[in-house]
């Protein structure tokens, strides 16, 4: 089995707002192995993006602050590195692509300049070398007429093309890990299919690990090896992809799977999870899902359940499975 590339250990990232403390990431632990695709799933505000930004040390402070825990990346604790050391990792050993390909490129620089920059900064290439490498990268992400694209500006490209350019930039320094934060959410379905296909291909060629953040369980089923489900800042379930879809345990995961209409599986009425995601400020010591959960018991409203694994390594944080752990 491949060794762990990233380990989140009890990560806590809080935001101090006027209304109170938002525990966006609250005691989160999980790991990503070399070459593995891990999907982080959850609804808006569950802390999935903040987890990724904490790994990149891109949490804006104030109001944000990493309050505790460790993030081990390739043997080093990211949180203990100096800013200069961190800069050598960012964009070099870890690449990142974002949801909005429209706003994540610099509108006044050509595509070529933006792909060449990390190569010249991190890999100390000359301008000529970087130019050639950039053209190679553009071809790899499936864009024809590479030379012409090099001198174009972002506004001249479509959304799908811009996302491909973002991928090319993220890949430029051969990262060990690529973080993709909702990479296809802003794209049309046919373009989304192209980008997912590209990510899958690139990952295989390079044996790179992929941390993919999404709210779409369809994408998860398609691309993930391992799935982490988050709710209100906590990991509530994690398992290998087949196991999770075949045997979802947490009532929230089950609800998510049932609430989404699926092509070819007609149902009379959609299952709904009642209520809405709780206000992240001032959450008490109880299961955060308890007020929406149809199986909630007394203990759910009194104590926070801890993540625990069954014999298959399927982890869940829910009091319903307390008996199973003891066995």
């Amino acid at each position, binding site marked *: 089995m491949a060794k762990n590339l990233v380990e989140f250990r009890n990560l806590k990232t809080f935001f101090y707002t006027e209304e109170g403390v938002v525990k966006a990431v609250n005691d989160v632990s999980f790991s990503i192995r070399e070459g593995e695709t891990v999907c982080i799933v959850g*609804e*808006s505000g569950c802390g999935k993006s903040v987890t990724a930004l904490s790994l990149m040390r891109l949490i804006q402070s104030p109001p944000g602050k990493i309050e505790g825990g460790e993030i081990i990346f390739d043997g080093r604790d990211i949180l203990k590195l100096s800013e200069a050391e961190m800069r050598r990792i960012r964009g070099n050993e870890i690449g990142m692509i974002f949801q909005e390909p429209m706003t994540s490129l610099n509108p006044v620089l050509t595509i070529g300049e933006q792909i060449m920059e990390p190569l010249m900064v991190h890999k100390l290439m000359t301008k000529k070398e970087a130019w050639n490498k950039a053209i190679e990268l553009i071809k790899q992400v499936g864009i024809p007429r590479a030379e012409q694209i090099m001198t174009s500006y972002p506004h001249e490209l*479509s959304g*799908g*093309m811009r996302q491909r350019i973002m991928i090319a930039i993220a890949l430029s320094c051969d990262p060990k890990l690529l973080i993709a934060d909702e990479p296809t959410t802003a794209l*049309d*379905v*046919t*373009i*989304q*299919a*192209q980008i*997912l*296909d590209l990510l899958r291909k690139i990952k295989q060629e390079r044996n790179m690990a992929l941390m993919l953040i999404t*709210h*779409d*369980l*369809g*994408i*998860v*089923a*398609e691309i*993930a090896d391992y799935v982490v489900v988050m709710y209100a800042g906590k990991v509530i379930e994690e398992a290998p*992809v*087949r196991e999770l*879809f075949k045997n979802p345990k947490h009532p929230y995961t089950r*609800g*998510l*799977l049932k*609430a*989404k*209409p*699926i*092509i*070819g599986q*007609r*149902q009379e*009425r*959609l*299952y*709904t*999870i009642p209520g*809405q*995601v709780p206000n992240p400020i001032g959450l008490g010591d109880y299961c955060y899902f308890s007020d929406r959960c149809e199986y909630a018991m007394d203990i759910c409203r009194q104590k926070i359940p801890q993540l625990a694994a069954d014999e298959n390594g399927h982890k869940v944080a829910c009091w319903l499975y307390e008996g199973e752990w003891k066995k």
Partner: protein
Amino acid sequence: MSEPLIEVKNLKKYFPIRGGILQRTIGYVKAVDGVTFTINKGETLSLVGESGCGKSTVGRTIIRLYDKTDGEVFYKSIPIHSLKKSELRKLRPKMQLVFQDPFSSLNPRLRVGDAIGEALLDHGLISKNELRDKVIETMEICGLAPYHIDRYPHEFSGGQRQRIGIARALILDPEFIVLDEPVSSLDVSIQAQIINLLMDLQEQKGLTYLFISHDLSVVEHISTRVAVMYLGSIVEMAARDELFAHPLHPYTQALLSAVPIPDPDLKRERIILEGDIPSPANPPKGCKFHTRCPLAKDICREQVPEYKDVGGGHFVACHLV
């Protein structure tokens, strides 16, 4: 078969592109380029397609939020685009619209109760004394608590705001509602709540919907019939079961195969379309889809395919069918 409530005949909507110092018209974006369909009373017709295909423009031109370029829309045989403004205004309460973005479609300075009730007052359909009761009644139907009536939009979540948007449309007792991507900006668990609400309301009040969406799994759940648009034209239209079981147009087939399905064991032949959607300001000649079509032949590059009925109300515009 039930009677048609809305009939759209060869509807066109072009937006001028202006340029030069005199801001002369230098071209047109053919957002809607000749679409024809009917919506029967009590059904949900879905319009699907990717961004820029003109589906929202169709929705807005049908209820004359945009003036047409050509063609006509009939509501119960009344030609909507030939009415005088005063006559149109009398019809407005019967045709309503719910928007995609519940964050920008509500006035942040207007209390929710006033936002929901203002159209009733404006149209003189209710007296001030009865208004509050009617607003509360509608809010309850839409799953909002009566004490929300004096709150402002920022105090609500996305799902609740969408309920407010629906209440605003519903209070006028409409017959026809255009739903423009009403669940696209919502999380899965909230999306299911809103879809169920829309379907319940349709059943209780016999509403007719035009449901505009890019999400085929939601469309399959909610529709009676489905029309697929590409670059301003309808390329295929059929009853829901027929369309999902036997898609005929290569674009529909590609769209269906591109939707990710939450089943890791499923192995599918996926059709991945190459390239991007061409600009609607300069659409390709012949069949507009030929630049991306995996099956394109010479005839597709030259002739516009005829939009024809291949049996049982299944319409398709493709040379290969």
